[in-house]
């Protein structure tokens, strides 16, 4: 038996608002065990009630009844297990796992939070019903249940959001990759046309892609065309210089084409010796220069005769 200091919440019994030393029958962990046992015993009924509430509130409309039921079973069991073991890391891992399955189905954050809160309430009401005759005990049970249940709701929500963010990042990554192709135009020659706005992250990704491409394609010359680049700040200019240097470490020569006077100025500002950097006016000229470096003969076709 443990001694606990308890402030009675029950105003109906007319007790003093002051602290009252009460010898309680059970320790908090014992209470948790008791309510977990109750939730397990009434599993079928409570789970059914929960599923009904879910469809009533029109959550998870993207999933079929069968799918909801299947997921509900494992969520219910995980919920109760988390109450019992307080293993919230395991719960978060479970939540991420579950999210991985349901996010592609179009399930949104508010739906996931919603159904977990519904479960919390369904279970809470069942506890009310069970202990309604013993108000003091109900209070103690709720004292044990509420913080744990809220922590579960929080953990699941966080797990879901983390998974969602991971998916979004992945998609962004894929989009970036698609929009910055490293093209193999000839043997040993790569072209990297850069278009639009480059932020430091994209610049870094471009560099990594290019370096991998140099190794895969065994490129000896790379033409980086920046004609389509809107503006370049010092950070990105530095990235360009680093890309040129890193390419050289892999044995590839870089020709930069499409250098506008503004960008040339930025490069000079950061201390780049443009005389050392291989630059050519336009992409076509750059490719020809590259071919010369590779030992291809550049032949100008004769104009067709006009008769």
């Amino acid at each position, binding site marked *: 038996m443990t001694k606990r200091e308890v402030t009675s919440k029950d105003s109906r019994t007319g007790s003093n608002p002051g602290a009252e030393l009460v010898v309680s029958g059970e320790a908090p962990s014992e209470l948790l065990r008791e309510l977990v046992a109750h939730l397990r015993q009434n599993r079928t009924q409570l789970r059914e009630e929960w599923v009904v509430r879910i469809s009533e509130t029109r959550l998870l409309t993207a999933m079929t009844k069968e799918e909801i039921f299947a997921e509900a079973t494992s969520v219910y069991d995980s919920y109760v297990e988390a109450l019992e073991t307080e293993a919230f890391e395991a719960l978060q891992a479970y939540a991420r796992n579950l999210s991985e399955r349901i996010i592609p189905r179009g399930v949104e954050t508010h739906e996931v939070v919603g159904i977990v809160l519904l479960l919390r309430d369904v279970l809470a009401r069942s506890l009310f019903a069970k202990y309604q005759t013993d108000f003091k005990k109900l209070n103690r049970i709720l004292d044990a249940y509420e913080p744990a249940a809220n922590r579960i709701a929080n953990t699941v929500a966080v797990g879901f959001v983390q998974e969602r963010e991971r998916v979004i*990042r992945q998609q962004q990554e894929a989009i970036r990759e698609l929009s910055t192709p490293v093209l193999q135009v000839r043997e040993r020659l790569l072209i990297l046309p850069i278009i639009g706005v480059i932020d430091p992250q994209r610049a870094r990704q471009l560099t990594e892609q290019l370096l991998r491409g140099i190794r895969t394609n065994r490129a000896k010359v790379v033409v980086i065309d920046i004609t389509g680049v809107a503006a370049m700040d010092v950070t990105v200019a530095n990235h360009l210089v680093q890309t040129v240097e890193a390419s050289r470490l892999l044995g590839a020569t870089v020709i930069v084409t499409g250098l506008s006077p503004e960008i040339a100025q930025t490069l000079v500002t950061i201390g780049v010796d443009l005389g050392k950097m291989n630059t050519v006016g336009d992409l076509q000229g750059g490719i020809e220069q590259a071919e010369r470096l590779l030992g291809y003969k550049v032949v100008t076709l004769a104009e067709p005769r006009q008769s």
Partner: protein
Amino acid sequence: MRAGEIRVAINSDQDIVTARQKGRALAIELGFSTGDATLIATSISELARNIVSYARKGEIILKAVQGSSRLGISIVASDRGPGIWDIRQAMKDGFSTSGSLGLGLPGVRRLMDEFEIDSEPGRGTIVTVKKWKQ
């Protein structure tokens, strides 16, 4: 998630290798890409090297850290060496871009996401860097 930290005593140049190998292993375990793991291992190598070169001995502490919604790695390089007289000078880029002079600290700062240095002449130096998983 891992509790605890990995401590590597730095007394010799062989320990530099040990520290960076453990750093790379931890980074991979935490789910960093191989590219990031290389950046992390390289930073550890530079920081450990500073300890050997300037303080002769010290320690590298590696551990996982949890941000608001992401995982990261923290590296603390500490020693009771002579300390850095002029931190601003040491952090100036020109001081180390040759690769063979200076402490390589601006470079490490470029490689990592967070960088903090605490140094007092006569007391020692503590460099704390962090990298977050993308």
